[in-house]
């Protein structure tokens, strides 16, 4: 479990950032807490805050979150052989805590020959607890910062997204996908279509990855 410390550290930092940013965007503490407890998906929660502050319609928020999280289907499908050994109730409960991070840790555990779900569950639930505690800390901190624009705090959410994208790039085509998605969404937003900009650009750009194999 020792190899999980960097991931836990990042979770705490991003969780605090999320609480601060969501509070600054005008969401109520109870709403922010509910997002971290029920949705428990960092990028989606940040996206929701942005869409809420732009007044996006409810179906659009849900559709955007669904799109961001479709990758879970791939991760769950790859963990399926190991999970299917557990009773249905247990594996469906364990599925709630599936994240990019717990997937990565579980995959390396199983590749080393592990078979038990205990390793995954321990790590995944620890991340859930840390994420929610740091969200709470961020909410408290966010309520005390007076004027976010003056300190550049409003930019923290954008900087977080930029960093997530940079860290997620694995192949050259990922860079092209990211640049095209950002450019298309930026143009659409300038044209006044800011709420549909994200889902339109986000759904179109991955087509590049279908045709380019590098």
């Amino acid at each position: 479990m020792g190899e999980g410390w960097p991931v836990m550290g990042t979770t705490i930092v991003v969780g605090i950032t999320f609480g601060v940013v969501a509070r600054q965007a005008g969401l109520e503490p109870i709403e922010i807490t509910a997002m971290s407890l029920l949705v428990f998906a960092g990028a989606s929660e940040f996206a929701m805050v942005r869409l809420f502050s732009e007044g996006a319609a409810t179906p659009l928020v849900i559709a955007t979150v669904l799109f961001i999280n479709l990758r879970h289907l791939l991760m769950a499908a790859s963990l399926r052989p190991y999970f299917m050994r557990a009773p249905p109730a247990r594996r469906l409960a364990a599925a709630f805590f599936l994240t990019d991070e717990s997937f990565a840790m579980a995959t390396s555990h199983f590749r080393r020959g592990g078979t038990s779900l205990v390793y995954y569950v321990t790590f995944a639930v620890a991340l859930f607890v840390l994420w929610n505690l740091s969200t709470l800390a961020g909410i408290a901190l966010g309520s005390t910062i007076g004027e976010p624009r003056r300190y550049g705090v409003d930019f923290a959410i954008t900087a977080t997204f930029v960093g997530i994208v940079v860290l997620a790039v694995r192949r050259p085509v990922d860079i092209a996908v990211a640049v095209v998605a950002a450019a298309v969404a930026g143009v659409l937003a300038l044209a006044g279509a800011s709420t549909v900009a994200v889902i339109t650009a986000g759904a179109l750009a991955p087509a590049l990855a279908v045709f380019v194999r590098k």
Partner: protein
Amino acid sequence: MIWLAIVGSAVATYLTRSLPFALNVRRRLPPAATRYFEALPVAIIAALVGPAVVAPGGMLTQGAEPLAAALVVATVAWRRSLLAGVIAGVAAVALLRLV
């Protein structure tokens, strides 16, 4: 309406996490679909960046946000640290807005 969006998003997210453990999906996705889904998170998150950089708060940027975003790219690519990138970006945007 915010509550409906939160609960709806929670249900949508849980479905993506649990469906492969609930259904008997034996068939693998075609490679093209796999490549599409693998690129999807990067695309959506990058798409969130575009409007925030060119039109923060709905108004055309005066240059602080694109410059700061470029600095975040450089910092994270160099240090491989999200925290370093966010600190650099926030500090840069605060300074650039003073100029």
